[in-house]
């Protein structure tokens, strides 16, 4: 652990694993919110994704199937949310909170038989030559599929929202569902798709927790990360690139404060534990000074009901 960069690589690797679940879940929520729907149930969808991913991986021996099942499970939870809020027009905030609570209980129920069972961590993908490079190799070219996926999804979503026609339609619906409806777009169908995508991404975030981060199932193992992902979307002012920044800032400070404690610096650990949240609030305050910039990116119809009258 000595040498110039000896400490650097493991610290960066820790930051990556702390940030990846946040990034995955927040990317999904960003798309959902861009379509004008606020789904507060990320925590519940993540937990169900985590337990289903774990169970399927354990019983089939295939992490690929486990990841797929986790995404489907997250999407399944989101489907219930979509039906309630888009067809039955239930209140989105209340339904989202109910989804979070339901997911906590449901995942505990599904997971009853999996407590105390160990699993091999998700294999890392290696590239010949590149993975062997010093410093860069282990950081950039020796990660598991979900870490690469998290970056790919940010890039993909960014392209989709701002460079594709479908993305333009999605944003239009989020900003003015009546106008979009009037020119013939199916608001409900597109919002369904956005909600399901958000659920699937939360499921993937859960799978990362139970298959790679800490390869086990334990009740409530996400420990509030779903709520942080939710805050990150606001933090990022609904821009995918800033989401990447926010997730890594948060993950970075989380890891940093543990290292500061280990070094024995006389700063109260409660204060250090608070730091990531403090940083989030601080950035939110700074961003909020410029209200126009937020309004530019925030979906104007966020959380509002749409009912096609007539």
């Amino acid at each position, binding site marked *: *652990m000595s040498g110039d960069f000896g*400490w650097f690589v*493991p*610290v960066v690797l*820790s930051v990556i*694993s*702390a940030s990846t*679940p946040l990034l995955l879940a927040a990317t999904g929520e960003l798309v959902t919110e861009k379509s004008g729907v606020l789904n507060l149930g990320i*925590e519940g969808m993540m937990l169900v994704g985590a337990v289903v991913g774990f169970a399927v991986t354990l019983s089939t021996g295939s992490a690929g199937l486990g990841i797929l099942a986790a995404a489907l499970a997250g999407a399944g939870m989101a489907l219930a949310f979509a039906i309630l809020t888009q067809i039955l027009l239930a209140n989105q905030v209340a339904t989202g909170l109910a989804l979070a*609570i339901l997911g*906590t*209980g449901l995942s*505990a129920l599904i*997971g*009853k038989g999996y*407590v*105390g*069972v*160990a699993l091999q*961590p998700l294999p890392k993908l290696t590239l010949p030559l590149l993975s062997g490079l010093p410093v860069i190799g282990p950081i950039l070219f020796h990660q598991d599929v979900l870490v690469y996926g998290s970056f790919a999804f940010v890039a993909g979503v960014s392209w989709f929202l701002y460079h594709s026609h479908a993305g333009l339609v999605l944003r239009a619906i989020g900003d003015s569902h009546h106008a979009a409806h009037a020119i013939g777009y199916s608001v409900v169908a597109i919002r369904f798709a956005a909600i399901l995508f958000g659920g699937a991404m939360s499921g993937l975030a859960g799978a990362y*927790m139970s298959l790679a*981060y*800490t*390869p*086990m199932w*334990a*009740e*409530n*193992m*996400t*420990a*509030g*990360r779903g709520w942080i992902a939710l805050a990150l979307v606001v933090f990022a002012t609904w821009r995918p690139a800033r989401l990447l920044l926010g997730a890594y800032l948060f993950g970075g400070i*989380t*890891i940093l404060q*543990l*290292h500061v*404690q*280990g*070094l*024995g610096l*006389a*700063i*109260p*650990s*409660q204060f250090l*534990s608070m730091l990531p949240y403090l940083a989030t609030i601080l950035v939110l305050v700074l961003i909020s000074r410029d209200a126009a910039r937020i309004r530019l990116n925030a979906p104007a119809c966020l959380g509002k009901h749409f009912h096609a009258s007539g």
Partner: protein
Amino acid sequence: MRRRTFNKLLGATVATAALGRVGLARAADPFKAGFIYVGPVADFGWSHQHDLGRQAAQDALGDKIKTTFVESVKEGPDAERVIHELAAAGNGIIFTTSFGFMNPTIKVAKQFPKVYFEHATGYKQADNVSTYNIRFYEGRYIQGVIAGKLSKSGVVGYIGSVPIPEVVMGMNSFMRGMRTVNPNGKMKIVWINGWYDPGKESDAAKALIDQGADMIAQHTDSAAPLQVAEQRGVQGFGQASDMIKFAPKAQLTSSIDHWGDYYTQRVQAAMDGSWKSQDVWGGLAAGMLKMAPYTNMPDDVAKAAQDAEDGIKSGKIVIFSGPINDQDGKPKVVEGQALSDSQVLGMDWLAEGIEGTLPK
């Protein structure tokens, strides 16, 4: 000790409403004993171990008793309702197994003077309320001896939950054990300010390993730190239950909470009328704390661990006997003296060799 009171308990009301009536329909022939747990029995930690204790009592006493449990009960008003229900349902003895159940237990005990109550980890007794706890710190001493022998860097990483005497005495005990074999042994501490967050526990373990620790000890509930130790090729110790499945190469031993014998004795005493209010703080000698097999270490280290275990059992080793200095080198206990139980229970200083701070 307060255990996980967050999301896990959201389903508590529903669960207790359903489970609170388990076993009530049966004929009242066998003596009834009730248990309430703060977490789910599947937590693989605190509540899980209490439930193993209940099962042991049921197995030992067979048809003569009928045990009932209610899991995931929130500390507070909900607990009072559940304890009341168990008492009203004809349980002759009721075990309330979390620190936060203390006041509800005392309150319900007043209303049911003929029912015996047993409260774990608390400090309030009454004519029909006993308290009981385990000297978890004894296991830490043995872990310290093992770490002192095996650590190449001489640095142990210790993941703390919350800075209360229960946790602090464990750290100091570990350090005492370690320094008997390695006078220069050091401990680094990271607090996660909670009992349970697998992700954060594993991050803390990684941070400690990155800073040179090659032994990981924890006072948190999940097996995540041991998993990290396994992946990083260092070693560590399990907590509350045997976690060898998570770390077949990394786990050296684990301090296992063992409530079964105590539960059997107390239910038996309640049945034959010899039950008396008492305050029990039992450890290795009482069989309330057991060590998982000493694995993944050479024979001489296993022997040193066994010797420490025997020494604590026989009373030859008194863990908090002087001289003990605090982390600034100031004497805390002078030679020839030892800390009393009440001093141990109020411990608010870190022993020499521990780096890191005790949040005040």
